[in-house]
């Protein structure tokens, strides 16, 4: 029986999913109607729906971040990219004679995402072209990007009033919040892109052992450019979503700290910061966990000021659980002390038929 449970127990996603379920259930304890989903005017409503809707931007950024981390890199600039994307889109729409014109909105979105690709390629250039460490390279855009966003909005919060645009973040389609659909589609496309093509395999190879992947003939530079551009695009979409939700673009506040939450989501989801094997599904779970945390705190009446504190505890717990030396110390306390090695025993344990 233990043998059957063991494999599930050791699955990478076990703890994140377990904690997620725990959190959701604890919500149920305080709010018996937590899991209920109602249909009003053909739209689904409910706390669970809210979690998905509010967590969608983080999921998007997390997906892009996962691929970057998979190659052994990191992208600190996503928050600034979110702000810039929002600023460009809202800025363009604000200047339209008719803010409800669909074509105008589509142009705004296209411009915004196009610029995001450029920003991503800039990061890729610094990392793959100039060989600068990713943490430093993306720091530059992180710092300058906020200034650029504010430059675009001229220091104001650009407000708009456009029903096609507000669909992205706040609207509904086919009964579900549009943002959830977007997140779902991006996740599905990314999963297909990564697992149906050889991209996922090659990225994991690059992140896992860069020198071996070079000697295997993998052209890692092109892949690195690609993932940074992709990461910027997902951040851009998240920016559109966020600004659509509040019908405005705030160069200062949009996407603040989202890079930290995204990195957290990736780590919780089981992808190592050093690169190699990555899990998009894990990141989604991680993002949902973070969002659920925030929601749980609100619904259970715990003061919202403690959100950060709880996040800190969750991060610490996850990191310690993933740390081999921590696990070793815990298990050592349980195992009986071994005095002097027994060669035959060790050989038995480590025997691998060859």
């Amino acid at each position, binding site marked *: 029986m233990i043998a059957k449970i063991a494999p599930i127990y050791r699955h990478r996603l076990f703890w994140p999913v377990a904690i997620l379920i725990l959190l959701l259930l604890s919500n149920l304890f305080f709010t018996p109607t937590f899991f209920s989903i109602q249909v009003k005017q053909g739209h689904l409503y409910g706390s669970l729906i809210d979690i998905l809707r509010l967590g969608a931007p983080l999921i998007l950024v997390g997906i892009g971040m996962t691929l970057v981390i998979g190659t052994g890199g990191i992208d600190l600039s996503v928050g600034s990219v979110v702000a810039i994307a929002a600023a460009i889109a809202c800025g363009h729409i604000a200047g339209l004679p008719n803010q409800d014109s669909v074509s105008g909105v589509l142009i705004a979105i296209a411009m915004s995402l196009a610029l995001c690709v450029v920003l991503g390629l800039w990061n890729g250039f610094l990392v793959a072209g100039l060989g600068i460490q990713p943490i430093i390279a993306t720091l530059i855009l992180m710092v300058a990007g906020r200034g650029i966003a504010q430059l675009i909005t001229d220091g104001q919060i650009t407000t708009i009033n456009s029903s096609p645009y507000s669909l992205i973040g706040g609207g509904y389609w086919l009964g579900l919040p549009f943002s959830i659909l977007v997140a779902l589609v991006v996740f599905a496309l990314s999963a297909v892109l990564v697992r*149906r*093509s*050889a*991209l996922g*395999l*090659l990225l*994991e*190879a690059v992140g*896992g*052992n860069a*020198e*071996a*992947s*070079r*000697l*295997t*003939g*993998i*052209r890692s530079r092109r*892949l690195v450019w690609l993932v940074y551009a992709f990461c910027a695009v997902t951040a851009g979409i998240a920016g559109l979503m966020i600004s659509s939700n509040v019908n405005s673009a705030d160069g200062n506040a949009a996407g603040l700290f989202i890079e930290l939450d995204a990195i957290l989501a990736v780590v919780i989801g089981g992808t190592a910061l050093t690169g*190699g*094997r990555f899990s998009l599904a894990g990141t989604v779970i991680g993002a949902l966990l973070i969002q659920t945390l925030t929601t749980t705190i609100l619904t259970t009446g715990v003061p919202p000021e403690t959100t950060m504190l709880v996040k800190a505890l969750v991060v610490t717990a996850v990191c310690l659980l993933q740390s081999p030396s921590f696990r070793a110390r815990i298990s050592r306390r349980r195992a009986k002390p071994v005095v002097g*090695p027994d*060669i035959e025993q*060790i*050989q038995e344990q*480590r025997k*691998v*038929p*060859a």
Partner: protein
Amino acid sequence: MDDDPAVLARQPVLTMRGIHKIFPGVKALDGVDFRLFPGEVHALMGENGAGKSTLIKVLTGVYPIDGGEVRLDGAQLRVSGPGEAQDAGISTVYQEVNLCPNLSVAENIFIGREPRQFGRIKFAEMRQRAGELLRRMEIDIDPGSMLGSHSIAIQQMVAIARAINISARVLVLDEPTSSLDAGEVEQLFRVIRSLRADGVAILFVSHFLDQVFEVADRITVLRNGKLVSEHPIAEISKVQLVNLMIGHELKVLTELEQRSNLSPEEAAARPVVAAAQGLGRKGAIAPVDIVVHEGEVFGLAGLLGSGRTEVVRLFFGADHADSGTIEIGGVAGALRSPATAISRGVAFCSEDRKGEGVMAELSVRENIVMAMQAARGWARPISRRKQDELAAHYIEALDIRPANPEMPVGNLSGGNQQKVLLARWLATEPKLLILDEPTRGIDVGAKAQIQELVVRLARDGMAVFFVSAELEEVLRLSDTIGVLRDRTLVASLPNVDLTQESIMSMIASGAES
């Protein structure tokens, strides 16, 4: 073993008895004994994977011992880290320069033990003492200069200066001369001799035969983690030593069918797969001329450090050549990268399995298809069905165990990892297959399988470039043998009437053939 009463009368300062050290999948040390007397230079020798570095790391506390005991001056020694080993009086200089290049020479020598006054380091005194030490070692550098601004050779000398400064009872030198030229080696030996006269016990690991015979008093030979023998230097000749290190294999392999080699005429008649003229790289390998034909096995023999890996890396584009030309499959042109070489039909199975070959986290199947997939690019994936077929095929053909294509390669034993890497390259159906030490650190059964595989591949028309430290292997499999010594190709001969002894002579003494 020793009948010299003067020797017997002395007590060893260091005794290691029955040392066992096991890593997942490989037994690095198997019941090794070693002893070191004060006032002697004791050379520890053996090929890659013999266990020399492991023995030293066990002694200095970098790895914990799995079995056996170590005694220093009769008392049992248990150290859990390099700092403790140092405090106990064992001072080590590693093969890789383990110093801090961003600090000054004097600081590197003294750090951790600087002369201080009220917590403040006395730099002037430190520099002065460092200067004296360096002068004694005949190293003419400014102690205040930054370590990183000097050549590796000088850095190595500074590392030795640090070790000496610690006034140890035991000085361990792990391949200290790899980056030194002849003059620097002489300097080092003068220092070693003076330390010996002071009663320091010196453990000297090296693969340079001449140097060992010049400075050592006794020799211990390890092979495949086991102790082979211990001799006073006077009682052994160079050829005998080479024999002990890389000589006769166990019976199993000698029973393998002797392969009928291609005669030189036959080989020359076949199309040329790879031709290099004057191909060289400064500091790595002097220009070589090598031609490999279809269906020919070209074996490279030589000791560790003679440039074997460097030669084959040039054929793969893993390193850039400074001089000469290379033509693969009729296509001439420099190999700018491994990807280029692969597109011309070259495959390279590296000797550094862990660092340059295996992607430990990924599964057997993924590792096997990796090179093929890389050549196709990310947009054209190999179908899962085909991947499973490939994996199943090679698992069976090469007898990879455990026969689970989804197992992470890092969990396999060394031998099976090697087979996975082989499968990876075979899947690309190359024209030229380069195998660098494919049977190192592998159990005998797997060794035999891999050797048989090489024979089969050559018979089917593949050109094979085969590097090995095991002369038996090279002799059995090769049609043509290239002998390397000190980074120069000293001979390139058809495998006709060649014996282990003749090759060993070439290795031991140089260009005479």
